[in-house]
Structure formats: structure tokens, C-alpha cells
């Protein structure tokens, strides 16, 4: 299938996203004074969906899969399209689609929404690029390509103090982290003399006296990843950014951008720094991830349990979920059969998370659109006024908590299974404790919406509109969250195939 097309076409998902972004700019420049929010949203949604469909088609066709001639490398090996890349591109594209559709209603009265769509699309392009990056240089460039629009997006509401403060903090921490990341890359380059993953890997095997340098570099790269995935200790930006940013942006960052961080991690740490070789050189980055994962999930969940505002609670919970997903790297053990399983489970979790978490933030967007407050109390009795949306929210909450019959159940339990299979009982146990706590605070939302009575009878009169697009996005996310449970087979198999791909590419893992 793929050999019928020119090799560069393997990049078409990323290209589609990028072109859509440019198209948006074009539209905006040609007719600047026409506030065509709708057309913008439409174009960007179509672009995202187009790229999504192409991606899915590629996955189904097995592009870059070992069975069909293996990964497709382009640009002197700087870029590589394989199942992993496509899998994550699918996540990015679908989240983008959801977000832009929702944004249409969220920014219905905004002065100039056009910039939002183009920025989102460019960020998405950067993510797609991250997914295919095969060289540390490309990784860094793509990473910046994701970060810079994100900073702007967070601070998008220029007159909103919260948005600006969030943007500032996000930017400062981000700049620092990317500097650390970059320095890490430079050290690895210093130690191995290359930026292409494959060559770095071979360099790692023969480090000699430079092991320490490479080690410091690798740990700094871990830091960079931690920033993108909002993991301790680089998580500090997350609560503020997610809380202050416009809700669609929070959705975008907490789902897609996080996933972007993970795709880098999965690829770099398997292909560039194979565990076996790293261990031989005394660089136990899996241990580093284990520590980070443990601290992250604990901090995220415990802090989320005591929040007053739903949005901030979701922010912390997304930190907690970063901790879960990190298990996918932390629970790797050299040469163990369970590696594909656990990493695949982490990827699958990110996919499911892409839907349920985006959905949750979009519900918050809906609430902000309605203009009801942000605290749990403000959500009291919401189910009476908006049963459909609240049911969807309940689905997201229970799914995030890992309860059947929702997809979050499968992904989370497969993650724990993977950890157990590789002998990381303590990680699984910690994850279990955390998910019990998460059950508590997620059910607080459900309780507020369904069980509690509104503070005042007039509290919910603000709910006077039914923003169609937002509803559509939320409901679609909910449906996806439910359907992914019975339909989990292909997902997890694709994810495991992806993991297998990168692990195999790393040769001796």
C-alpha cells in the first residue's frame, strides 16, 4: 500500500495539519475584517479530520509497520514514520478536531478568534512532527514548535489577568525547561557525537569516560520530557496554565501536548538510549522515570483531592495521569517480555485519556460559556438543567477514575497489569492507592452535579443557551470514551505494535 505512494507522502498527516494552519492565516489575511469564526472553525476541523483519516488509513494499511517493509525514514534519517508516529498523530489530530469544534462556541464573542485556530493547528503540526522525529535536533525544533504557540494560546485572553498570569508562568517555566532540555541534548551530542537516534544508541554502547556527561545529559532530557508531560518536578506550570488558560486550550495542552511529550519519551528512550546499553553505562533512566512517576501520581492525586475549583482539580488530575502514563517508561526492564505490554498500555491510556480528559475540560468550557462558577458548589444540581452534558461529564469522571464500563478502566488496568508483569508491584500498588483517592475527587464532581441541590433556586438560571458545537464535541468525546471499551482490542494491539516497533528498532533493548 504505502509503496504505491511516494515516500514523502508518509508525512502527509503532519503536512495536512501545517497546510491547514497556513490556509487559516491566508483566510484571515485576505478578509481580516470579517469575523468568520464559523468558517475558521470549519476549516481547521476539516483539516484536523483529514489528517486524522489519513493517519487511520495509514495505520490500517500498516504503513511503517514491520510487516510492510518497516519504518519509512526520510531526510537522511532525521525523520521516521512508523506505527508509533501514526498512533500518536491520531491522538493529536482527534484532540485538535474536538478542541477547534468546541472553540467555535467558546470564542463566539471574542474579538479575533482567527489567531486561535492557526496557533492550535501549528502546535498540532509540531506535535505531528515530534511523533516522526528521529533526531534530537528535529525533536528540539518540533518541541519548540509546539511550545511557542502554546504559550500564546494560554495567554490568548489578553485582558484576562488569569490567562496572562498563566501564560507568563507557562512561558517562564517552559523557557527554563527547554534550555535544560537543550543543554541535555548538547551533552549527549558531546558524549556520542551524533543527534540521530540510531547513532546515539551505538554511541551509548561505547561511552567510556564520557558516561557521566551522557548521564547528566540524559537526565536533563528526562527533565525536558517531564516539562512537556507536566511531571514532577517540572509540573509547576501545569495547575496555573490549565486553570488560567481558556478551557479549550487547557484541553488541548493537557491531552495533546502531554501526549506529545510522551511520544518523544517513548521514542528517544527506546531508540536513542536503549535501556540495556544505558544500564551498562550506569545510566538507569528507568529508575529516574520510576521516581518521577511515583512522585508525580501521588502529588497530582493528593493535591487534586482537596481542590475547590473543578478546573484546577482537573489540572492536578492530569498531573496524576501523567504519573500513570510514566509507568510505561518506568516499568521497563531490560530484555523483559512485558515491555511491549506496559509501554503499549501507556500509549493506549494516552489515547483514551485524549478523549476523556479533553471531554472533561470541554465540559468546563461549557460551564464557563454558561457563566456559572468554577467551584464544585457552583456545579450543584447541574444535572437537572443539563442532563445530557452532565451524563457525559459523569462518563468522563468515572472513566478517568478507571471504572467500567468506560475505556479508562481498560487502559488503566492494563497499565497496572504491565507494571505487575514486569515486577513493579510497588508502582502498581502506588497507582492503586492513587486511583482510590482519584475516585474520591472525581466522584465529588458527579456528586455535585447529580446528588447535591443548587445553592439557590436561581443559581442555574444562567444556563440559557445550548452551544451546539460544544455539546457535539462533549457528547462525541463521551461516546468515544464508552465505545473504546468494547473496541479496545484494535487500540491496544496497535499500541503494542507501536511499542514493539520502537523497541525492536532499538535492537538490543
Amino acid at each position, binding site marked *: 500500500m504505502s509503496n504505491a505512494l511516494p515516500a514523502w507522502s508518509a508525512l502527509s498527516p503532519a503536512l495536512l495539519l501545517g497546510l491547514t494552519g497556513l490556509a487559516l492565516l491566508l483566510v484571515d489575511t485576505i478578509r481580516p475584517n470579517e469575523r468568520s469564526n464559523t468558517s475558521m472553525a470549519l476549516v481547521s476541523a476539516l483539516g484536523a479530520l483529514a489528517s486524522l483519516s489519513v493517519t487511520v488509513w495509514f495505520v490500517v494499511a500498516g504503513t511503517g509497520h514491520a510487516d510492510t517493509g518497516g519504518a519509512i525514514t526520510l531526510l537522511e534519517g532525521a525523520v521516521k514514520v512508523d506505527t508509533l508516529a501514526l498512533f500518536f498523530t491520531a491522538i493529536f489530530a482527534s484532540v485538535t478536531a474536538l478542541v477547534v469544534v468546541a472553540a467555535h462556541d467558546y470564542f463566539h464573542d471574542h474579538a479575533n478568534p482567527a489567531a486561535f485556530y492557526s496557533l492550535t493547528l501549528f502546535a498540532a503540526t509540531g506535535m505531528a512532527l515530534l511523533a516522526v522525529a528521529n533526531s534530537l535536533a528535529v525533536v528540539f525544533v518540533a518541541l519548540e514548535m509546539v511550545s511557542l504557540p502554546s504559550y500564546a494560546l494560554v495567554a490568548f485572553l489578553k485582558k484576562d489577568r488569569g490567562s496572562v498570569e498563566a501564560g*507568563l*508562568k507557562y512561558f*517562564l*517555566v517552559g523557557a*527554563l*525547561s527547554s534550555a*535544560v532540555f537543550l543543554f541535555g541534548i548538547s551533552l549527549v551530542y558531546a558524549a556520542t557525537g551524533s543527534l540521530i537516534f540510531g547513532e546515539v544508541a551505538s554511541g551509548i554502547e561505547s561511552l567510556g569516560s564520557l*558516561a*557521566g556527561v551522557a*548521564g*547528566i545529559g540524559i*537526565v*536533563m532530557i*528526562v*527533565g525536558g520530557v517531564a516539562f512537556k508531560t507536566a511531571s*514532577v*518536578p*517540572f509540573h*509547576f*506550570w501545569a*495547575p*496555573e496554565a490549565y486553570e488560567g488558560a481558556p478551557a479549550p486550550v487547557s484541553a488541548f495542552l493537557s491531552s495533546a501536548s502531554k501526549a506529545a511529550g510522551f511520544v518523544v519519551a517513548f521514542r528517544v528512550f527506546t531508540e536513542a538510549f536503549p535501556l540495556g546499553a544505558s544500564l551498562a*553505562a*550506569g*545510566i*538507569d*533512566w528507568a*529508575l*529516574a522515570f520510576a*521516581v*518521577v512517576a511515583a512522585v508525580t501520581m*501521588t*502529588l497530582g492525586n*493528593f*493535591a*487534586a*483531592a*482537596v*481542590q475547590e475549583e473543578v478546573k484546577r482539580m482537573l489540572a*492536578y488530575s492530569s498531573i496524576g495521569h501523567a504519573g500513570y502514563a510514566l509507568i510505561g517508561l518506568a516499568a521497563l526492564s531490560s530484555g523483559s517480555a512485558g515491555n511491549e505490554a506496559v509501554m503499549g498500555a501507556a500509549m493506549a491510556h494516552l489515547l483514551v485519556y485524549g478523549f476523556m480528559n479533553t471531554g472533561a475540560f470541554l465540559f468546563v468550557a461549557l460551564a464557563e460559556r454558561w457563566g456559572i462558577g468554577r467551584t464544585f458548589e457552583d456545579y450543584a444540581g447541574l444535572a437537572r438543567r443539563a442532563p445530557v452534558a452532565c451524563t457525559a461529564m459523569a462518563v468522563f469522571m468515572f472513566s478517568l477514575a478507571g471504572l467500567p464500563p468506560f475505556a479508562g478502566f481498560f487502559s488503566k488496568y492494563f497499565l497496572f497489569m504491565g507494571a505487575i508483569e514486569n515486577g513493579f508491584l510497588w508502582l502498581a500498588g502506588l497507582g492503586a492507592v492513587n486511583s482510590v*483517592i482519584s475516585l*474520591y475527587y472525581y466522584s465529588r464532581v458527579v456528586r455535585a452535579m447529580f446528588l447535591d441541590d443548587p445553592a439557590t433556586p436561581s443559581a442555574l438560571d444562567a444556563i440559557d443557551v445550548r452551544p451546539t458545537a460544544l455539546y457535539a464535541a462533549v457528547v462525541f468525546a463521551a461516546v468515544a470514551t464508552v465505545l473504546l471499551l468494547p473496541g479496545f482490542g484494535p487500540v491496544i494491539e496497535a499500541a503494542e505494535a507501536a511499542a514493539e516497533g520502537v523497541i525492536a528498532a532499538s535492537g538490543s533493548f
Partner: protein
Amino acid sequence: MVDAFAYVPAVVLLPFFSFLVALGAGKYLPKGGAFGGIAATAGSFLLSLWIAATVAGGRAYDETLYTWAAGDQFELTFGALVDPLSALMLVIVTLVALLVHVFSLGYMNDEGETGLPRYYAGLGLFTASMLGFVVADNLLMAFMFFELVGLCSYLLIGFHFREPGPPSAAKKAFLVTRFGDYFFLVGVVAVFATFGTAAFAGEGSFPALAEAALAGDQAVWTPGGLDVMTWFTVVGLLVLGGVVGKSAQFPLHTWLPDAMEGPTPVSALIHAATMVAAGVYLVARMYGFYALTPTTLAVIAFIGGFTALFAATMGVVKDELKQVLAYSTISQYGYMMLALGAGGYVAAVFHLTTHAFFKALLFLGAGSVIIAMHHNEDMWDMGGLKARMPVTYYTFLAGSLALAGIFPFAGFWSKDEILYEALVHGLNEPLLLGGYVMGLLAVPVTAFYTFRMVFLTFHGEPRTDLAADPEPVRWNVKGPLTVLGSLAVVTGFINMVPVQKVLGLEGIDYLHRWLDNEWGGIDGLSSHHYADLGPYSSGYIAGGEVPTVLVGAAVSLGLALAGLGLAWRLYNVASPTEHTAKLGGIKDVLYNNYYLDELQVWIAYRTEDIAGGADTFDQGIIDGVVNGVSSVSLAGGSRVRRIQTGLVSQYAAMLTLGLIALLVLIGVNGGWFL
């Protein structure tokens, strides 16, 4: 001819159907379903007679009719066992039940009671359960119907549930007997575990196996390799727990006097003639097992003797008619236990029979008096009823003479035989002798309170207007009284052992021969067999059997007459007065039944205190821990969130520190700095 035994289930089921009918359609039927019950019990009675005749015809019946649970480990079944003992019991139960049903027409319907369907349903179910218990062919089935009997007594005692008293009495009755039944149930389970069966009769029955086991040619399970004899004694005592409860033996007798809260016919049927008999009957039923363990027998005898005396003393001071009868019931069952313990199997059954009749008679007589007195039971408000209700008086008198054990009434013969058995066997058995002495001492006391009751009720001058002009009673009251009255006179003659022994007339001890399978029965269930198993040897005083018989009889009769005389002297006057003052301090003790009820109430309260303590512990400690966990983690959460100070430069600092920490960790772990 048709086989009578094919109708054994019918005997049980007829009253059960009357229960269903009364329950379902009672309120549409005349007399609230009374006739259904009468018809059913009459039918059962006739069938029982037929069955008894068949047994007399030299046949017996032991069949498994229904498999309840067909496990490989144990097979739990229902079946019918008809031998002389159960045949006799069937006749007694059905007859008394029939008479009580008839009497109820007068006592309940004519008095315009409400809830009659419930009443007759209860009677029907009770009769059915009792009959089921009688024909039971294994211990489990016996236990089941034993419990159902308990349920019925609960329902019937609490019949007047709108008043405060009866429900409480019903609760007490069920609870106290339940306490005994607990041991019984443990015993049943133990029997299964030990022998793998609970059948009463036949080669594979557990008494037979136990006999074999003691003989050493049969291996049985015992806990922790316990000695077989010891274990059997334990099992026997466990089952005895149920007996002590149901037959109201010390210390579980306290429920029976309260049970008088129930309607009088119920008292007659349940707490005199049949249900309380269940305990004694059970011992007789599995006597082949008890006879094997001397210790158990001795305990039974001692409990019996003690209860006989103990209850009699309390009966002395009671003012209410039914109370006196209640304590006399307890006392009389004490005699039966004494007999069983003393190896007097036949004597026990004999007294069971006679007592069933004369005690039913006394209760029904009391019922008739109560009707006449418009439900005033205080004897001090009566007096002089003799002239106004002659039928009741003379039948009641017959019953009293029997109860007091005056020659030649029924009670004399049975009680005399009991004492005789206890004496001859007791001469070599100190514990048993103690039982005998207490039984003997109870004789004058019994005579005294019985006639105190008679004189206070019927003799002298009427002490109230009610007594002066009692309400007349109808045929449905007099009829049963007459029947039972005559039975109370004649029943004794079915077993005139002393006469036989003294005059040497062979074969007039019909009951002995009946229970000895002389006309037919099942091997291993004959009185002879039991005697062979039993540990006792006979000893005689005054040189020889005949003198012993005479002396024994003379002594007991003399004592009875003495008691009677004292009662005559004190109460057979125009206007009798309380003489209890003469008793001094003992009086209060007797009035308060030796404070045993208080003791049990105290125990109940302490139990509730413990429960309260447990509840506090549960809510405080255990649930406290559960809630503590959550509050602790939430507190932890609010600590953690403080890290997010909101100051971005502090974020930078913490970020850097975290990174350094990570570097150090991995570095040290990887040994870069070496």
C-alpha cells in the same frame, strides 16, 4: 385390609390442613374455623387409635418417607417411626388436642374473642408439629418439629398481642427454650458427625452404633480422639439441653409460669399435656442412647428430683389458679425426669400418660372456673364454687386427687412407681438417692398446694359477688371435663405394678408389656433392652421386693395425705386467710420464685450492656479507623498543594533542586562520580 401405617402421614397432615384452612379461609368459616380443627383432630385421633390397634396387632413401622438433602456425607431424611411408645403418644396428643379444640368453642368463641382464625390456625399447626415430632424417626426431624412446636407456643402464648404481657411472655418462652435448643442443635450436629446418622431405630441407628462403639466393635469419630464414653456423655448432655428447656426443668423452667399469659386451653394443650411432654418424650425416644451413659442418667435424675421439689415449693404460695397449676406442671415433669434418670423408662411414660390427662383436666377445669369468674384468676376472689358448678368441681377434684397422688387415682400409681424405681436403683447410687429423697419430699408439698387450690376455689363461702353468681358454662366445656375426669380416675389401672407385685397377679402391668413389645414393636426399642443397657442394679429395703413396694407406697401415700390434711386444716374453712406469714423470710423468696427471673433479667441486661460496648467500639475504633484514613489523606493533600506557592521564581528554584536531586540519585546509583 388397608395398612394403617400408610396413614401415619395423614395423622400429621390433617391438623396441618386445618391450619391452612383456618389461616386462609378462617374468617369466612363459622366459628372461625373451629370445626375444621375439630374434624381434623378427630380424624387424627381415630387414625391414631387404628394405628395403635395395628401396633397391638403385633406390627411396627419405620420408614423413610422423604429425603430432605441427599448428600454423600450425610443423608438427611424425614420418616415415620411407629412403635408402642409413639403409638401411645399419638393417641394421647390427638385426644387431648381434640378435647382442647372442643373446649375452645366454649372458652374462645362463646367469650367472643377476636382473631379466632389465628387461634385455630395456631392450634392446628401446633398439633401437626407435635404429631410430626412424635412420629419422627430421626433426631434431625425431631429437632425440626421440636422447633416448630416452639414457634406455635410463641404464637399462641402471644395470642393477645395487643396487651403488653403476652408478647413479652411469648418472647421469654421462645428465647429460654431456644437457649436449650442451642445445645440440642449442637447435639444433633455432634450425633451426625459422630455416627453419620441420626436414626432412632434399626441396626444403623445411632443408639445401636453407640452401643457397638462402647462394646468396641464399631469405630466412631470423636473430637480430638476423645474417649468414646466421655464423648457420648457430652453428646447426651447436649441433647439434654433441649429437653431441659422444653420440659421446663431447672434452671430453664422460668418461661412456663409466664406462659400462662396464653389462653387457658392453650395452657392445657401446650404447657401441660403435650409440648412440655416433648422433652421427656425425646429422652424416652432415644433412651437406648442415654441408658449407655450412667453420668447422663444420674444428671437427669438429679435435675428431675430437684425440679420436682423446687417447683412444688413455689406452687405453695401462688394466688392465681393457673400459676399453681403451672408450677405443679414443672414439678410433675421433674418426676418424669427423675424416673428416666432412675432407669424407670416405663414409669416415666406411665406418668407422662396419666399426667397428660389429669393436668389437661385441671387446666380445662381452671378454664371453666375462669369463664365463670369472668377471667378473674385470683383464688382469693373465689370460694364456694362447689355448689354452683358441680361438674367442674367433681372433675377438678378427680384431677387434684390424681395430681396429689391419692390412692387409687391415676397419679398415685405412676408417681408411686417412679419413686419405687428411684428407690430400688438409688440404694447403690447416691446421686440418684438424692433425687429420690427430693421427689419424696415433693409429695406432701404437692398434695398441700393442690388442695389449697381446691379449697380456696370451691369450698367455703363466696368471697366476691362474681363467685356468688358465676357465669354458667355449656356442654362444650363440660364434655371435655367429663371425659378427662373419668380418664384421670381410671388411667392408673393400665399399670398396677404394685398390685401385681404384692398379689402376684401376672399380666396386669399392661403398660409394661406394651412398652416391652410384647404385642409388637421394634427390636432395640423395648423397655427390657433399655433395662439391660442401663447401669442400675436393684436393691431392696426391709428385706425383699414386696416389702419395699409396700413401704414405698405407704410412705408416699402417707406423706400425700399429710399434705392434704394440712391444706384441709388451713383452708377448708368458711373464710380462709393467708397463712404465708408463718413462712417468714422464706415467703418472699418463694413469692419471687427464688429470684431466678431476676437473675435471668440481670443476665439479659448485662448482655445488652456488652452489646452496647461492642457498638461503641465498632463506631469509635473500627469505623474511626476507616474514616481516619480518609481524613488523614485529605490532610496530606492540603499539605501537598501548599507546594504550589504561586511564585514563579520559587517554581524555578524547586524545579532546579528537583533536577539536581534526580541527577544525584541517578549519578550515585550509576556511580558516575567515582
